[in-house]
């Protein structure tokens, strides 16, 4: 314990057991008179210093619950609430405005929109000003909290210049300044790349021990969290609690129930369930102890086309790109693509991945180096022709939407190209059917769900079957189901001969699907080849901040264990 909390421990002597939060028969909805409330009669509790994982399908209101627990809802939204929530035995209605917020800290999902000040220093000061911390103490507290999250060097920096992972650490730091008894993490790593996600989770693990607080984790991607979880709460689609038990019980004894509710379970659990073991491993090490070699999956190649014999459709030679004429972004990049190939481009933030993709798409041009697509130099392509052969799917689907309805969105390009109305109609119907959007035909693209938006953004690129489809981090911030759907669409396209390029941080995806992978490091190609050989390049992986895929981690861990065994026997 580092900071004062003397006044707090004396609260409510009667409440002698160590319960921190007590939720009883709690229902809530945004409508003031709901037919089927968002949560229904929830009853659970969180004990002091306990780590609880809250799961549930998207739309079950998990984030809303976070805001009910810190007292912002229902007041802020004029919603409906029934039942009671007690904090250290005291009903939350009895807290003054802002008082409960100081006991319950929340880190939210979107790293972009959690701050109100420009610099890290001023943002941290904002929290302390709210608490009326005397000015003389601010510097010391700021130093301390920045050290805790490992951001000391960033005190004077502008928040918008930081990476997503760094932003989340600043958000965490400003919440720690509240010195909360309960820390709620509302999908804080959903918008981070895997390496930063892992780092953030490890940080939480460390802080929990230093700061003496309960932690409530709301997450889709459970894998790395499971290790530090004491208890699991699961909600179903109707906002009812369906599990309140230790993790192995929730994941194994209720496996079918969870899967049926559309809840994603950790990879380790899925692997163990697919085998015939009765053990209940939760970590990769436990899994290997139980299953040994049989934990490894056979890799199935997804494509039927033999790429080596296919024609080259895109070729870059010695391509460089400078920002503001002198800051190098890309430096002498060589790259080639064959028909129907699936290629991943990976690397650290700022390595030049997006710039390279934009050059491949022809929306950025550079004079340095040769750039050919199919049979012509990029400069010689007619813009309209090029767009027909080459599609680009943006990270945020919304950026591509330009009309009011799903139907118009899909038919837009064809109408623009002066196709016959009948043909346009047929193709649009076909695409809507294929991408399961026919029920949303007249819906506004912005009002679709995340998965539907992603499908639509791909559909708009398929007026005709393009030769090349480029994706800028298409799985970023998306849930597992959306990713799965996307990969199915892509397999389909490849069978029709479309080459696919992904800029991605997701090494599991690279390992499972890509034929070849390019690693960019400081604007240069640091590796080019099949993914399976990349995973043994230790120093490169470290330099480019890449995390090994799950299956490869298992493989390497297994080898290490075998080696130990050999040594042990000898």
């Amino acid at each position, binding site marked *: 314990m580092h900071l004062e909390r003397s006044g707090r421990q004396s609260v409510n002597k009667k409440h002698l057991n160590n319960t921190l939060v007590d939720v009883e028969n709690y229902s809530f909805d945004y409508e003031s008179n709901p037919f089927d409330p968002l949560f229904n009669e929830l009853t659970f509790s969180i004990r002091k210093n306990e780590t609880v994982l809250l799961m549930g399908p998207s739309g079950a209101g998990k984030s809303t619950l976070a*805001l009910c627990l*810190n007292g*912002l809802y229902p007041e*802020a939204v004029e919603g409906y609430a029934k039942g009671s929530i007690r904090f250290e035995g005291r009903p939350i209605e009895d807290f003054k*405005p*802002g008082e409960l*917020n*100081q006991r*319950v*800290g*929340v880190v*939210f999902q*979107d790293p*972009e*929109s*959690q*701050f*109100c*000040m*420009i*610099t890290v220093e*001023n943002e941290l*000061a*904002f*929290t*302390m*000003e*709210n*608490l*009326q911390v*005397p*000015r003389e103490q*601010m510097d010391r507290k700021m130093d301390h909290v920045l050290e805790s999250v490992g951001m000391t060097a960033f005190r004077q920096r502008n*928040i*918008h210049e930081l990476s997503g992972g760094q932003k989340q650490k600043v*958000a965490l730091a*400003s*919440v720690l300044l*509240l010195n909360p008894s309960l820390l709620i993490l509302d999908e804080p790593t959903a918008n981070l790349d895997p390496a930063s996600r892992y780092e953030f989770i490890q940080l939480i693990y460390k802080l929990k021990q230093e700061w003496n607080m309960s932690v409530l984790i709301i997450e889709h991607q459970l894998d790395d969290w499971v290790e530090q979880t004491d208890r699991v709460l699961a909600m179903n689609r109707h906002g009812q609690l369906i599990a309140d038990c230790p993790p192995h019980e929730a994941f194994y004894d209720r496996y079918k129930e969870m899967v049926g509710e559309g809840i994603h379970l950790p990879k380790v659990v899925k692997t163990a369930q697919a085998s015939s073991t009765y053990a209940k491993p939760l970590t990769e090490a436990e899994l290997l102890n139980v299953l040994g070699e049989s934990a490894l999956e056979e890799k199935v190649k997804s494509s039927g086309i033999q790429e080596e014999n296919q024609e080259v459709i895109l070729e870059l030679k010695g391509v460089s790109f400078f920002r503001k004429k002198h800051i190098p972004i890309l430096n002498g990049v060589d790259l080639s693509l064959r028909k129907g190939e699936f290629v991943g481009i990976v690397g650290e933030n700022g390595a030049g991945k997006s710039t390279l993709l*934009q050059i491949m*798409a022809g*929306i950025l041009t550079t004079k340095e180096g040769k750039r050919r697509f199919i049979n012509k130099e990029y400069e010689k392509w007619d*813009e*309209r022709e090029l*767009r027909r052969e080459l*599609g*680009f799917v*943006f990270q*945020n689907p*919304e*950026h*591509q*939407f*330009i009309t009011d309805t799903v139907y118009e969105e899909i038919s*837009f*390009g064809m109408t*623009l*190209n002066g196709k016959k109305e009948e043909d346009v109609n047929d193709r649009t119907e076909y695409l809507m059917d294929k991408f399961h959007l026919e029920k949303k035909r007249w819906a506004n693209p*912005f009002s679709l769900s995340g998965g539907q938006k992603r499908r639509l953004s791909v559909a*708009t690129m398929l007026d005709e079957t393009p030769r090349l489809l480029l994706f800028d981090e298409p799985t970023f911030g998306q849930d597992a189901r959306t990713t799965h759907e996307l990969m199915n669409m892509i397999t389909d396209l490849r069978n029709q001969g479309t080459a696919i390029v992904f800029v991605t941080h997701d090494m599991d995806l690279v390992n499972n699907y890509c034929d070849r992978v390019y690693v960019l490091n400081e604007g240069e190609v640091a590796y080019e080849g099949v993914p399976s050989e990349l995973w043994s390049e230790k120093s490169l992986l470290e330099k480019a901040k890449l995390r090994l895929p799950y299956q490869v981690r298992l493989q390497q861990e297994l080898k290490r264990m075998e080696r130990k065994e050999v040594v042990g026997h000898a």
Partner: protein
Amino acid sequence: MLNSINPTMKAVTIFVPGLLLAFVFDPFTPFVYLIFTIAMTFLLSDLSLKRWLLIFTPFVFVALSFSWMTMLYSSDTFSDGRILFSFWWFEVTEGALMVALSLGLRSLCLVALSLMFVLTTDSTKFMLSLMQQAKLPPKLTFGILAGYRFLPTFKHEMEVLRQAHKIRGVGRAKGIKGRIQQFRRYAIPLLANAIRKAERVAVAMESKGFTGSTERSHYHKMTVRKRDWVFLSAFVFVFFATVFASYMFGYLNIFGRQF
């Protein structure tokens, strides 16, 4: 020096002469005051002349265009004196030229005053000072700062939208209808995102214990010191001195009345 003047006081300082200048219609007063403002800008700060000129020069053209219009279409009150020259159907009199110069110089004077503020003031400190000195409610202060923080985000998003439109084959807009469609294609995604962000930021701020209460401590304590008052008085004093001088020289003109 200019950087450390209290931002609220600095705002008042450029406000007062800015308003008073509106009464003056002779070229002498704004000209002298323009020189004074520019001199103060560079004496009291280490701004680079190049940067200042880069921002100031376009306004010279705006001012010229406004002067030109004033000269050609001046009202009867001002178009006295002998005719200097005439072309097409225009007749330019001495009075018209003078008032045109006056208005052009006035607009440049306002720009110079504003630049003195804008180029030497930290946005965050300006808002904090408005809260601490001008008693702006914290809810407004931090609400405004929270929105301002998104400027780089939206600039970036605008760029991404431009690229996305290119991919979709939407080229440059033609005609009024095309322009309105183009405006919509930019505005809707930007605004939809802005609205979602506004809600998230507000919730995040309140989750950090922000209630809008005025009872809060201040990390940056903004104060008004003696030299802030000296600064303000100097600018007001020089204004009246200039007016007096132009009265002495017989130039002074207030709303068309010669003094």
